[in-house]
């Protein structure tokens, strides 16, 4: 036979060893006499908790009353995910009304409109059409 050939660089990208998460904790508790078994995975100190058919994202900085999902974390004027800016509908000084589309993004083949969260005046525009933008980057700042 030929000696086995190892392809340490080609696959996967990061060398030949693919490492996996998959480590979880489980917690049993009762609410109103119903038994729940929660499955918990960690992303740093942020916990993803599956329980009773729901998923909660619990951040150490959150209050004691987390809402499901990350909506509270999102600044409406920053992209919710890596995306490409396809259109900018405002310039500094423009007046915007709650719900106006301010920037149009594209990601995963979907158009994602970024809308004004309140009435206001545009103070700064921090992106250009065609630019790849990241979550957390403020695209437009209102006065």
């Amino acid at each position, binding site marked *: 036979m030929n000696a086995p050939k190892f392809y340490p660089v080609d*696959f*996967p*990208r990061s060398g030949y060893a*693919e*490492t*996996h*998460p*998959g*480590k*979880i*904790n489980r*917690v049993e*508790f009762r*609410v*109103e006499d119903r038994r*729940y078994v*929660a*499955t*918990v*995975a*960690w*992303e*740093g*100190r942020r*916990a*993803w*908790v*599956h*329980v*009773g*058919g*729901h*998923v*909660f*994202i*619990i951040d*150490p900085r*959150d209050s*004691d*009353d*987390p*809402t*499901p*999902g*990350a*909506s509270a974390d*999102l600044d409406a004027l920053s992209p*919710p*995910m*890596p*995306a490409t800016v*396809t259109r900018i509908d405002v310039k500094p000084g423009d007046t915007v009304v709650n719900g106006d589309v301010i920037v149009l993004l*594209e*990601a*995963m*083949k*979907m*158009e*994602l409109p970024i809308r004004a969260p309140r009435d206001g005046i545009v103070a700064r525009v921090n992106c250009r059409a065609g630019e790849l933008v990241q979550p957390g980057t403020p695209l437009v700042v209102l006065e």
Partner: protein
Amino acid sequence: MSITRLLIANRGEIACRIVRACRDRGIESVAVFSDADRDALHTRMADQAVGLGGTTAADSYLRIDRLLDAARESGADAIHPGYGFLSERSAFAAAVVDAGLTFVGPPADVIGRMGSKTEARALAETAGVPVVPGGVAPAQDDKTLAALAASVGFPALIKASAGGGGKGMRIVRHAGEALDGIGAARREARAAFGDGTLYVERLIEESRHVEIQVLADTHGNAVHLFERDCSVQRRHQKIIEESPSPAIGPAVRERMGQAAVALAKASQYVNAGTIEFLVEGEGDAARFYFLEMNTRLQVEHPVTEAVTGVDLVQAQLDIAEGEALPWTQNAIAQRGHAIECRIYAEAPEQGFLPQAGRILYWHPPSGPGVRVDSGVETGTEVTVHYDPLLAKLIVTGATREAAIRRALRALEEFVVLGVRTNITFLANVLRSETFAAGRVHTRWVDTAMESLAAPPPAELAAAAAQAARALRQDGSSGPHGAAGADAWRDLTGWRL
């Protein structure tokens, strides 16, 4: 021409499903992958994997030249296009055949004919199949399109002529919205399909989407495999499909099947295809209109596999090899009830915003009556580059009620951590009275968002937060334990 090595020009769950079909058949599989998909499940599962380079769809899975190079390099003798990407591009089917390979799908001219909504419509009318008022504009400029919209009447639907799957589609309720809708649909159509040609038709509201699966061989035989009801849609994207349809009666079912076979024969169709109908009304009083034909395998094909017992991918491969269909129409029957739930990486509460990230834990359900077709697993990085469909859950039960309960059980077993999904949302849909009553129309989800995307019980949220805090404060578990070696220490006596 028997197929011995099949290249799969696709990614995600459907690529994995076709790799499995190759194994189930005893032939070799060749995956292709973009730079973003080097570590993807489909890349690993296949017997061979060939890199296409590129990251965006346009630079990778839509590159006909690179796919043909990959086929040559790997020695494949056939190509399966899956769904989406190049599956309905007649130029691709033609290029595959020109390269001396077998294309697992209809001939290029049939794809061209049925892919064109105008020609498909004309053919349907010829075959005596009712159609919805509408058509492709004689010219594609904004003005002509807007005029056409006005002539078919509002509300009108603007759709990508090349498309499918809800992309490049807009509703225009009155003349003033026409230009915006045309612009958006054209942009999405270009981005998704590389073709901005638009089609306009009258929107029939509160209608159902019911489609008929057909199989046709190269010997002129065609059969249908009954219907799938795909009325549960969010923003024109199917999310739950079932068979049989709770809406139509047996007489309508039979007429729809006959119409679908007639159209397949009229178009000289070959291989698996789906004829989509819009359905108004209920039971045997329901009326159906031809909508379009999808000249490829559908995302929701497992629903049909579950109720008929026919493996559609094997049937596609048999037909591509020149085999005659092994059944007459009478030999095919529906047994029980099947429901498919599409598991998307998306946040329903935020307008179904696609989600990206690393899957920290992926635990699909199993047991009686449960099938999961997945394109990901624990550790998979979900990127922004492609469709956010992660997996499909297909359940089968003796009755519709049993199937619904089983789907709810399976969704509750389904644990995905690290990326938000629509799992809870799907359960809310299945639990709703409207779905239970079988009274869903294609716009229902969008109008019922307040209850469907309702927040979970506050006490459960509080308990989850408490649990996380308790774990965080416990040195042997929580983030430190989880990232550290505790389990391994217990297991092996070995220490860092």
